């Protein structure tokens, strides 16, 4: 029979339709036949350790998770022999797990062991529980491991090894009583564990559990052991008389009572642009845990920030009342006074200097609805197009590159397409740290499915370590190698001619523009050998689907838009658009940086990327809003700073952005803030930027409001309110509405849904978006048609140009704006760390994160350290042409030669990377050229304390292996399959 062929089998006598090759356990589950199962999880796949899913197939006992449909099988999950094997396996599980469910924090209705035992109907386990001879490991800041509760199912190991692919956890099957170990047997808190939380999430019981749950979840949890020990003993004493099911009934009752104790709210992560969604469990204002399960992008996956980094919500540094500048300080004020003051000053400034004397900066942290309102406030109420958002600092060049070539500025597919590609090329992206959950999918496909991986970067970061080919081009020369490889492919007839002929225009002009990029010249400019360039070209043309992911290492250059364009050109030449498993993926940096632009916070675009330069568009929005709109494009962030210095911009209303630290050349930016006549900052913290404000408005973070975010896949997802706004803080949409109304807008929005309804009525790409269609974990990837159908893969029916064809875009190479010389002899690369988001305003509030990564540091290569006599902890001053910082040194082979790396997680001018960066920008979009930076170094102190604590995961040593290695269990002399009784004292 052919793989995939439809076939009928019987399960317990019921006819079931399935496909040849399908996993038997999936078919059994689909037909809702009772079958115990603990280690099996659809996301993780078969692990084959728990032995509870034995079924009888054609009179033979097999694991349903280890068998595939091959013929018209007769499957019995309830035959006497199958039931006996299942009960034997469950009994063995209970030998490894003490049942004290009513006292257990994991008894929340989703405990896999509890539910399996309950469903199995087992009356009395055959084997008594026996604790393992190991201490509880509570060394990790976010979770603890209790070996005695661990059933050795290996879900955590599978998740760590083959889903997250951090390769820290394993089971040591050689021990008399096996257990999970970290690295080679060190404590969890001293290992290479990155704290992603996968292991805790998939653990079927309480062996691995979030520390924030301990003593909180449950009515009887957190009792002293002097009380719990006799309670457990009493329960066990009663169990022989009443049977185990009555004990399970009591605990099930208690778990249902917990429904009132714990509130579970679906939300979307507020850190990076991957768009992980999950439930957040709260008790009062306490955040008990984050529980990922059904997120369309992430399923059970999270990173350390999304899983554990929520302490900022209840931080005592939250702003809770409006503040107004008063002499040398701020004084608390009422909302009425703050809003009235802002409206009065805005009116006065507009009256004196015109509407364009005001500027508005929206936030990628805020919702789509808030971005929409912010640009509406600027345009329809104040009358200016001076509206922008922080994508100006990162992603605008990527969008520009895609607009030029394919017509839509978004990822051309979904994360599943990245996962399915034959070859992934990552350029200028430290994906494992900046987009950790997307990295898990790439690492998994690379490790398990033969996906090829090419990484081009200055740093040998984790993805580079894992790559099949690692390219280290000279700084700022990505466009050159991309163009050289493209020329080589075309010249050697390796291009996709059919695709070019039918779907692409401007080939001739484009090919002519490649003339300077012969292999010899390309190699000379980039430092990449000709052989390697050819190898890369051959990898691309032989791959079944090529995906290119890129980020700030590409965009934050003076040629950022051009390099993004070169990426898209290469994909067009090789036919890697318009089908699943390929395409362009600019990895959006913030949770809603995509949505902030999508919903119109851009100086030349209305919501839905409708061009302000098109009179038809403007007329449409004028009708929608009932006002006359300004017709000329406004200022972007960068231009606003210059306009403040020149005196033409006098007022700025900025929400959710610490622009005083994250914009380039902050001395220049901060001195601009000082010149403003009105500066309104809306934030959840008293940020560096807020220090310059005239009025500070306390906003509410995502958990305290409703709305939608759009992730890097163009996926719109709803977030629901989990907590009340803290103090007098308010959701941004309410604050913007108040300011609008104080200026005469007469808005009556009662909810974010009403705002979305208005936006989707008018913006064509959102026309089918409704809150109803986004209920729960449902999502929509724009464009969304009127009938509600969305677009997971773009360009299936042609490109977004009038001709329907893509446009190859000729390019030329421009030198970086700043290069090293004799005086400024070091190149400074910069970016994020996994555990801190951006400058760290939110993540430093997490004790667990900041204890392991208390500050920023300068990565210095071993060669440079030797040359300058530096060691870990040496203190140096870096000086650029704009400013200076003082930082501690960390020697690392992630950087080479005279290239150093300074992460951006600093909240102080003294060590902030942007005290060094310049005001040079990408030519097309004004995105700062953060990555083009030369400095000189002065050693202030040769010796010092290492800036990276010993327990930071970077000091751990991974233990890679293929999953849980269940064969090692099966090979043990004390193991027999559960068709037979357990060997005395055996597994």
């Amino acid at each position, binding site marked *: 029979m052919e793989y995939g062929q439809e076939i009928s089998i019987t399960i317990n006598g019921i006819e079931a339709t399935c496909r040849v090759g399908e996993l038997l356990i999936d078919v059994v589950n689909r037909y809702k036949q009772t079958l115990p199962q603990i280690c099996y999880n659809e996301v993780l796949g078969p692990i084959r350790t728990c032995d509870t899913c034995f079924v009888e197939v054609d009179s033979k006992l097999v694991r349903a998770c280890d068998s595939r449909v091959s013929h018209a099988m007769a499957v019995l999950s309830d035959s006497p022999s199958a039931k006996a094997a299942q009960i034997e396996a469950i009994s063995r599980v209970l030998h490894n797990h003490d049942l004290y469910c009513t006292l257990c924090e994991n008894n929340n209705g989703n405990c896999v062991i509890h539910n399996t035992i309950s469903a199995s109907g087992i009356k009395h386990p055959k084997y008594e529980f026996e604790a393992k001879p190991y201490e509880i490991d509570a060394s990790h800041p976010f979770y603890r491991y209790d070996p005695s509760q661990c059933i050795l199912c290996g879900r955590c190991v599978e998740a760590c090894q083959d889903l997250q692919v951090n390769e820290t956890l394993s089971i040591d099957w050689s021990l008399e009583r096996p257990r999970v170990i970290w690295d080679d047997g060190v404590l969890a808190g001293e290992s290479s564990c990155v704290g992603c939380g996968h292991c805790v999430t998939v653990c079927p019981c309480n062996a691995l559990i979030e520390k924030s749950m301990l003593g909180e979840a449950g009515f009887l949890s957190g009792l002293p052991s002097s009380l719990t020990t006799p309670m457990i003993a009493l329960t066990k004493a009663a169990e022989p008389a009443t049977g185990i099911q009555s004990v399970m009934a009591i605990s099930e009752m208690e778990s249902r*009572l917990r429904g009132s*104790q714990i509130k579970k709210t679906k939300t979307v992560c507020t850190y990076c642009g991957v768009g992980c969604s999950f439930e957040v469990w709260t008790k009062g204002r306490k955040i008990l845990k984050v529980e990922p399960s059904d997120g369309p992008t992430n399923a059970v996956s999270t990173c350390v920030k999304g899983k554990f980094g929520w302490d900022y919500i209840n931080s005592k540094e939250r702003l*809770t009342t409006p503040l107004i500048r008063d002499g040398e300080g701020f004084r608390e004020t009422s909302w009425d006074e703050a809003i009235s003051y802002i409206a009065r000053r805005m009116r006065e400034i507009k009256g004196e200097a015109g509407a364009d004397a005001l500027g508005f900066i929206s936030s990628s942290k805020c919702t789509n609805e808030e971005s929409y309102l912010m640009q509406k406030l600027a345009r329809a109420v104040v009358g200016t197009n001076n509206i922008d958002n922080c994508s100006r600092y990162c992603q605008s060049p990527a969008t520009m590159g895609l607009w030029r070539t394919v017509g839509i500025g978004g990822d051309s597919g979904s994360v599943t397409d990245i996962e399915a590609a034959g070859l992934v090329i990552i350029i200028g992206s430290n994906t494992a740290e900046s987009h950790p959950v997307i990295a898990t999918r790439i690492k998994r496909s690379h490790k398990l499915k033969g996906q090829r991986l090419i990484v081009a970067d200055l740093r040998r970061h984790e993805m580079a370590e894992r790559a099949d080919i690692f390219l280290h081009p000279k700084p700022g020369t990505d466009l050159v190698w991309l163009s050289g490889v493209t020329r080589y492919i075309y010249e050697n007839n390796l291009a996709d001619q059919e695709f070019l002929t039918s779907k692409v225009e401007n080939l001739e002009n484009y090919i002519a523009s490649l003339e300077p990029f012969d292999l010899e010249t390309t190699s000379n400019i980039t430092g990449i050998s000709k052989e390697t360039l050819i190898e890369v070209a051959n990898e691309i043309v032989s791959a079944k689907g090529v995906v290119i992911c890129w980020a700030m290492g590409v965009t934050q250059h003076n040629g950022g838009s051009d390099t993004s364009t070169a990426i898209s050109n290469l994909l067009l030449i090789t036919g890697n658009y318009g089908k699943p498993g390929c395409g362009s993926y600019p990895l959006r940096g913030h949770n809603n940086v995509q949505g902030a632009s999508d919903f119109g916070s851009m100086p030349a675009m209305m919501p839905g990327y409708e061009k302000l330069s098109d009179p038809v568009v403007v007329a449409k929005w004028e009708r929608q809003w009932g006002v006359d709109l300004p017709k000329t494009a406004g200022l972007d962030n960068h231009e606003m700073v210059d306009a403040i210095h020149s005196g033409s911009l006098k007022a700025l209303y900025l929400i959710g952005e610490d622009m005083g630290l994250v914009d380039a050349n902050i001395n220049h930016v901060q001195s601009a803030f000082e010149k403003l006549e009105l500066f309104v900052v809306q934030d959840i913290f008293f940020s560096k930027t807020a*220090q310059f404000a005239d009025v500070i408005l306390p906003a509410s973070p995502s958990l305290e409001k409703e709305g939608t975010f759009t992730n890097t896949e163009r996926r719109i997802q709803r977030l629901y309110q989990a907590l*009340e706004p803290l*103090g007098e803080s308010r959701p941004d949409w309410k604050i913007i509405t108040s300011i609008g109304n104080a200026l005469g807008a007469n808005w009556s929005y009662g909810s974010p849904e009403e705002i979305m309804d208005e936006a989707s009525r008018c913006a064509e790409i959102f026309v089918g978006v409704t809150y109803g269609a986004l209920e729960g974990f449902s999502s929509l990837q724009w464009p969304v048609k009127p009938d509600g159908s969305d677009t997971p893969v773009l360009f299936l029916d042609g490109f977004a140009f009038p001709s329907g064809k893509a446009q190859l875009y000729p390019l030329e190479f421009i030198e970086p704006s700043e290069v090293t010389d004799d005086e400024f002899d070091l190149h400074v690369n910069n970016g994020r760390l996994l555990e801190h988001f951006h400058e760290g305003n939110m993540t430093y509030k997490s004790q667990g994160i900041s204890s392991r990564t208390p500050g920023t540091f300068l990565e210095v290569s071993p060669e440079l350290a030797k040359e300058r006599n530096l060691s870990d902890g040496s203190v140096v001053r870096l000086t650029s042409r704009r400013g200076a910082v003082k930082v501690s040194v960390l020697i690392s082979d992630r950087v080479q030669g005279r290239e150093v790396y300074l992460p951006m997680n600093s909240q102080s001018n003294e060590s902030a990377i942007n005290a060094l960066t310049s005001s040079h920008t990408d030519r097309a979009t004004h995105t700062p050229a953060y990555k083009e930076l030369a400095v000189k170094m002065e050693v202030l102190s040769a010796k010092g304390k290492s800036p990276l604590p010993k327990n930071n995961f970077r000091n751990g040593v991974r233990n890679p292996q293929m999953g849980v290695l269940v064969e090692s269990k099966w090979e043990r002399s004390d193991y027999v399959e559960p068709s037979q009784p357990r060997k005395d004292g055996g597994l």
Partner: protein
Amino acid sequence: MAKAIENYKPEFDEKLLIQDELARLVENLSTSKVTELLNALLENGPQSTSVIVEKMNNPSTRQGIENLARFLGLAGQLDPKLLRGLQSGLSATSEILGSKRSPTFMELFRTMRSAEVRRGIAMGLAFVAGIGSKS
């Protein structure tokens, strides 16, 4: 010129995490889990207790309950004097179990001379004989 005000520290009222005095009281009760349990019982009581009934109502559990009930019924029919004796015997047993010293043979012999001990042994033998006659 609006210079940065670096030294300002916004005040934070920790009670906000609790909201107000009444909520604070509720929070304290909640910490002790009294209100949590009451709320839960009020909201989910019928639904959750039905689980108990559902789960208990099966042959195996019923058998266990029946056994327990027979035992309790039997205990109810016993002569109170016998129960008092059982109670006294159990507490004396606890004392012995609590002591780390083992009695000497001479002490055991002296104990056998006690009328209470002889009555206890006779009762034990009668019990054993009863079991034998019914099994």
